[in-house]
């Protein structure tokens, strides 16, 4: 449930950059290595943004796939677990391969290239005059 804190942080970041204007949309980049649940984030966003300049804003979440790079052989891979296998697939072929943060070729620990993002990419503001109660939080 830290999505509550994260949605507050997104709103604070947006307001800081909104020059006192009303925010109509927020673009967020969310890496798959973060444990932030998008639906939960949107749910809390709608609640926490009430009576702020972000009320009614469109929260647009872009997912960023994870990628790692081996510092030794420079190969790149995605440590994300494969899509959930069905029960039948599991019993037929054993469990799906595990995600690994070690290089599949030379076993060096990988460096995270992408997937750790939790970033307010941009906001869209409107020149419509904010109502007095939405001017400040």
């Amino acid at each position: 449930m830290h999505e509550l804190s994260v949605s507050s942080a997104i709103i604070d970041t947006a307001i800081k950059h909104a020059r006192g204007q009303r925010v109509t949309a927020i673009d967020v980049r969310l890496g798959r290595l973060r444990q932030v649940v998008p639906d939960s984030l949107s749910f809390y966003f709608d609640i926490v943004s009430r009576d702020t300049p972000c009320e009614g804003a469109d929260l647009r979440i872009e997912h960023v796939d994870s990628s790692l790079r081996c510092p030794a052989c420079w190969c790149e891979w995605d440590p994300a677990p494969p899509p959930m296998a069905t029960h039948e697939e599991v019993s037929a072929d054993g469990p799906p391969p595990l995600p690994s943060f070690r290089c599949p070729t030379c076993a060096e620990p990988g460096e995270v290239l992408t997937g750790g993002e939790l970033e307010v990419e941009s906001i869209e503001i409107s020149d419509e005059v904010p109502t007095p109660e939405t001017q400040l939080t």
Partner: protein
Amino acid sequence: MHRTKIKVAEDALDANQTIARANRDDFDREGVRVVNLMSAPGAGKTTLLESSLSELEGLRVGVLEGDVQGSMDADRIAGLHIPVVQLNTDNGFGGECHLDANMVRSAIPDLDLASIDLLVIENIGNLVCPAEFRVGEDTRAMITSVTEGEDKPLKYPLMFRACELVVINKVDLLPHLDFDVDRLLANIETVNPGATTMLVSAKTGEGVDEFRDWLAGVPQRAEAVA
């Protein structure tokens, strides 16, 4: 109505990071090194602190206890004559599931930093949320217990990846459990290659010396990276 797009490109938790750095500066100024200790509820954070801190020689330790409600854990630590401050996150909205930098900041005036060398922050019991929030610590450690299952590193990779040390607690229960330690170690290795691990029973004292040594080494390791 005219709409304008503004490029922001800012980490959403930037404000937390700024406060975490301010905490870190305060701790550094007083020469206090800080461990952020995390785990699921009931993994044995307080019990491990009780069994290890009481005999930690040559190092003055303080504890910051994070809980949603109550001071049960702080009372236990205070019983060992270790300086402890309780932080409750219950703010009328169910209580936060983690400590963040601002909450820790609010407790700093209550901590006598000049009289301690090492501060252990016992975070809220939770395997997800605390991993997202730095609080100004030098290092992060977690406890997983053998009653929790070998698959936990794969289910909660962020927490296991965030920590330099993974303590495997309650090993005194292994004879009674269908638990494969090697599989747990392999799963930890999968998500956090090279992480330090140790097998401990906070109850019987097995392995607690190793944890004590690790704690005693935090200041030196922190100096080395600072």
